[in-house]
């Protein structure tokens, strides 16, 4: 009887337990469902934002092209948006952005790549512990600070160089140091952290057997790095460079402060205007067609960024495949 009673008690308690368990399970399922729908909503918000921006840029950027014609905007170099007889050629603006970005990448990438090699392959631990945080800090500095420093330090230095180089040139228009070269130097520094960290990751992902076999075949450490490790990490390094390009193309604030802002052919010592700074600099006072053309410039910039992203996407997929 004792045993029977005990059993029935345990039966009851077990029954209760299983009841609460299923209750709990139902409860968790509900939470899961709610959480899932929240995630989906958030994901859709991003998609919605991209969609809205794309539509908005196209809707605002295309009308000017219709009104002025493709040639008038993209193949003319005369930018006089506020004149009686205005002309809206943005060729030099596009060229300045392209040239500035390419030069910045040419200057910045070798430095960044060698830094990455140093960090991944050669650096003694204590030294790496100093260099890595410094690079992370570099990534965190707001772009306006780069611009300010460029304006206060780089521009006066550039002006001195300019005065020395052109001291007896009669046709040069002095820019006071605010020129393409200053912008390129600032951009080159700004892309460093991105390129360094992504390519360092790529270098670290190269399997150690490759290094070991190369060494075993009698290659020196430097030979191993340049002939084995770097080629093996190529896709990751290209990704790093493309990300750097994206950063350089889209930068506005720093460039605005150091580049001078006049629309000129992108020569090293000319004051130039980039796609981004054309928008930043003129949106406040622009009206009518001028304003619409600024949106077209935005569309061009948007196009550039899209191209960079598509290229990047392709690369990443190739890397996986």
């Amino acid at each position, binding site marked *: 009887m004792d045993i029977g009673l005990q059993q029935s008690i345990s039966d009851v308690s077990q029954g209760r337990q299983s009841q609460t368990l299923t209750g709990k399970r139902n409860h968790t399922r509900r939470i899961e469902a709610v959480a899932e729908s929240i995630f989906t909503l958030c994901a859709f918000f991003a998609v919605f*934002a991209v969609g*809205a*921006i794309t539509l*908005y*840029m196209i809707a605002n950027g295309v009308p000017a092209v219709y009104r002025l014609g493709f040639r008038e905007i993209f193949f003319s170099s005369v*930018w*006089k*948006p*506020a*004149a*009686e007889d205005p002309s809206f050629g943005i060729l030099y603006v596009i060229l300045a952005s392209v040239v500035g970005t390419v030069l910045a990448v040419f200057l910045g990438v070798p430095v960044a790549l060698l830094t990455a090699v140093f960090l991944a392959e050669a650096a003694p631990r204590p030294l790496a512990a100093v260099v890595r945080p410094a690079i992370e800090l570099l990534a965190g500095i707001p772009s306006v600070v780069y611009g300010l420093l460029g*304006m*206060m330090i780089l*521009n*006066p230095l550039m*002006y001195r160089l300019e*005065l020395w180089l052109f001291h007896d040139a*009669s046709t040069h*228009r*002095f*820019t*006071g*140091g*605010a020129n393409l070269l200053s912008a390129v130097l600032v951009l080159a520094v700004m892309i460093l952290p991105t390129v360094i960290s992504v390519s360092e990751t790529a270098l670290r992902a190269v399997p150690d057997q490759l290094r070991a076999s190369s060494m075993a075949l009698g290659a020196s450490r430097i030979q191993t790095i340049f002939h084995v490790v770097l080629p093996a990490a190529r896709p990751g390094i290209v990704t790093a460079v493309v990300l750097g390009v994206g950063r350089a193309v*889209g*930068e*506005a604030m720093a460039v*605005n402060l150091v580049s*001078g*802002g*006049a*629309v000129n052919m992108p020569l090293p010592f000319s*004051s130039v*205007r980039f796609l*981004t700074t054309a928008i*930043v*600099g*003129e*949106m*406040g*006072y*622009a*009206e*009518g067609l*001028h*304003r619409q053309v600024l949106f077209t410039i*935005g569309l061009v910039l*948007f196009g550039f*960024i899209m191209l960079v992203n598509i290229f990047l996407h392709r690369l990443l997929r190739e890397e996986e495949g």
Partner: protein
Amino acid sequence: MTVILMLEILLWIYDGVWRPCQKSVLPSQTVIMAGSTSMEKFADMLAECYREKNSRVKVTAEFTGSSAGIQAVMSGRADIGLSSRPLTAAEKASGAAAYVIALDGIAVITDADNSVTALSTKQLADIYTGRIRDWQELGGGKQPIVVAGREAGSGTRSAFEELLGIKEYCYYANELDSEGAVLARIASTPGAVGYVSFDVLDDTVHALSLDGEEATAEAVKTGRYPLCRSLLLVTRGELGEQRRQVQEIFGYLQTEEGRKLICEAGLIVPDYQ
């Protein structure tokens, strides 16, 4: 950058769709002013002063540029536009009305170390069109001239170029997007020349005298100083059609107190007012 662009666009959507919707339910006690950065000091002082004087009516001001301000007025997002340039034909045709509220002089500035202190308007025009390229030609030391100015579309720029009769013939080495940026650039660049409104002048730069007239409010009021322009308040439709609160602001600016405020903002009250 993309993030900023995205935020900007969301802001535009907010400005264009959400705010107008909201505005209709806002109490009409708020008067919104929008426009030129050249009138920032004036508008801020007006807003503050008016708030103290008349606690029922709230005056707010935002500074997005003359064109953006006029556009805000025409789309009903603002009540009064602040413009440092005359209305365009298109703006007049769409029903904008403008009222001269103050005069402003444009000072021509150099860095503090420059030995040239006076120019004629002819010389100034030659500098900006690129015919004179070195301070030596103007009696200064041998130093190239760095020509700085504002971006296309700026009210100060169009006034400056129009007054000198060199509209769109200027070759700038630096085009900067605010008065403060011009001031900073001129102060830090030896041999630079630029132009700003009287009210932002400070000791870091030197204001040149033009055609023998010092850059002073007196010279502007008498019309002897060659570079002066009118600052406008812009409304959608004539002043008489505006809300009572908006009309009151115009009335206030005509009073002795209002005139004093305009002077304190570094602007000049026109004599015919």
